């Protein structure tokens, strides 16, 4: 049985397949807690968890906070508007101050790639990367893996298509690392202007024709397209983006009945995904949200180590 020996969770690139499986297996046992009438176990009672969000996020933050609360941890949240960063304090100073309050885990979201890594080096508390720039979003990657495994009962050998803005997507990177480690085949598709250089070296196939990309896919992971990318000239218009890369019923007309449609949210309905697909038979978007809670509980539990859970 693999043991979790890491202080931090910064990305999926550095995790072994066995460590990823350990998180997923642990999450399975935590998922049931959220279905109880009293949705709480004492696993992390007396522990303190801080969320340090320098970028707006509703669902990820809520998911982490709920995960911590369901494990009976105390939580404190600091957002950029209330942090002293706006007063000119450095990230490290902020972190050290939080640490001086004897916090066990810091969950950080930051617009700069590497911010979580920097924080992890600066503090002795555990650090969870809740998304750093375009680098990684490991718990999103893990919850996507969890959802796929739950629905498909396996990951090895599955064909997964990731569609959209790969260049700026931390979700895409974490998904690629995680899926590759567990043996999936990955095809990525999006405008050439939003395709990072040498991405093939991460072990993926690049396709620019959406229909080819989704053909025979077992899973389609649709990425959020940010409207400001159009202003930056990455594509001519949202209309054209939607026509070329939007997932709709027409694109899915040959899909198998077991297809999974995923999206990390929030959704731009009618842009990267049509409403009927987002809410349709293949969609597991809300399952992802539910599973995110279980996965984050598992991650918090594993990082905080030795305590035995009484489920």
């Amino acid at each position: 049985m693999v043991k979790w020996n890491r202080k931090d969770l910064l990305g999926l690139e550095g995790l072994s397949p066995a460590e990823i499986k350990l998180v997923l297996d642990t999450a399975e046992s935590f998922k049931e807690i959220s279905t109880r009438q009293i949705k709480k176990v004492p696993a992390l009672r007396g522990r303190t968890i801080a969320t340090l969000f320098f970028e707006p996020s509703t669902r990820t933050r809520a998911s982490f906070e709920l995960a911590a609360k369901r494990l009976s941890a105390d939580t404190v949240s600091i957002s950029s508007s209330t942090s002293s960063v706006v007063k000119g304090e450095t990230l490290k100073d902020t972190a050290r101050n939080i640490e001086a309050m004897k916090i066990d885990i810091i969950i950080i979201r930051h617009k700069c790639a590497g911010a979580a890594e920097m924080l992890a080096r600066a503090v002795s508390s555990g650090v969870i990367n809740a998304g750093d720039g375009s680098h990684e979003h490991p718990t999103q990657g893990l919850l996507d893996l969890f959802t796929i495994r739950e629905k498909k009962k396996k990951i090895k050998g599955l064909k997964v298509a990731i569609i959209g803005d790969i260049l700026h997507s931390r979700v895409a990177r974490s998904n690629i690392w995680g899926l590759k480690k567990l043996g999936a085949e990955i095809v990525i598709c999006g405008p050439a202007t939003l395709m990072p250089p040498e991405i093939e070296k991460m072990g993926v196939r690049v396709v620019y024709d959406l229909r080819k990309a989704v053909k025979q896919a077992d899973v389609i992971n649709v990425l959020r397209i940010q409207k400001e990318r159009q202003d930056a000239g990455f594509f001519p218009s949202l209309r054209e983006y939607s026509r070329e890369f939007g997932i709709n019923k027409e694109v899915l007309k040959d899909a198998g009945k077991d297809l999974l449609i995923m999206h990390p949210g929030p959704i731009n309905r009618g842009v990267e995904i049509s409403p009927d697909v987002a809410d349709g038979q293949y969609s597991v978007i809300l399952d992802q949200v539910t599973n995110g809670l279980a996965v984050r509980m598992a991650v918090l539990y594993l990082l905080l180590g030795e305590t035995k859970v009484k489920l």
Partner: protein
Amino acid sequence: MNLLIKGGRVIDPANKIDKVMDLLIEKGKISRMAGSIRSENCRVIDAAGLIVVPGLIDMHTHLREPGREDEETILSGSEAAVKGGFTSICAMPNTSPAVDKEAVVKLILSKAEQAGLVNVYPIGAITKGREGRELAEIGELKRAGVVALSDDGNPVENSRIMRRALEYSRMFDLPIIAHCEDKNFSAGGMINEGRISTVLGLKGIPCFSEENMVARDVSLAKLTGSRIHIAHISSAGSVRIIKQAKKDGINVTAEATPHHFSLSDENLRLFDTNYKVNPPLRTGQDIDAIKKALADGTIDAIATDHAPHSEEEKDVEFDYAPFGMTGLETALGLAIKELVEKRILTVSRLVEKMSLNPARILRLDKGRLDPGSDGDLTIIDLNKEWTVKKEDFKSKSKNSPFIGEKLKGIAAMTICRGKVVYEK
């Protein structure tokens, strides 16, 4: 006091000398070199087992004074320089205010004289405020003492103004040192664009950003017949352009920094901001191309691009950290490790790149050991193994990614104008 350096291996590429001999410095000037010299009333320096070369010249240093004296001053930069074996350094003009007026040049020269350690040669701005709009008063700058012109840190983006700068500077026999960067391409970029930038999710700076401007600048040098020197070459593509330009007879020279031939973008995996430089660290193939270009003469000089930054400025998220690393104190050790030990260059060729060629490019009466010339010497211990330690830096800033690195080869003594300015 006069100096008699005894029994060192004297290497002077300009005069094709490479033999064990004695060297006498009297009244600050080299007076004699011979197999054995006897002289009274002088300090005798035993250089047995050591190498005696013309003082090293760094043609690309940032001294930060005036403006950012917390990061470096002309004095602290001079101390770093002599520790690194340099007897002459050229101060880039991206200070605050920029070196675009006689007064700033005079301030630098006067501070350098007060420091009294190395020859400091100011480089003037090409354009007023380094803004790329109007030519600086180049004649005045020349009279005040600048040895070259550069808007370093900024390219002169407007081709018409760059053309005029090349034409105008020719009247004063001042080379233009070009910082080649197409800012439209590099905007927001932090590291080399490629596999590593993709994995790390950091915005990349493509090689094209540099190569595009190198190509433009050598074309303008051809058009104008003026001299251009390309700073801090980082990519294999730039090397190819310069090689071809030299074949075509264009008056172009180029430099590479120790970090661009020692480190690749693979070193950025931990987001350590000490590796954040502009131009960025490229790939293994680029390193190979730079080394080959140093060996075949396409790249004429090794320059440090010594860019001190305070710890506070560097110890931030990668996006917010400034570009640059210190270089004066590690350049020689890295050059010996990467070029001499790996047999890319002989010691004599290394001295060409670090002393003779910079002197030639900048028309300095340095870089050679002719009798009567200034007593600028570096005595090198090629076999000395040492570890780069933060606390040993003389520079006010310690932003070196090489801290902890084991190097072989070091300056054992630095002599400037006949005065021992550093000894280990």
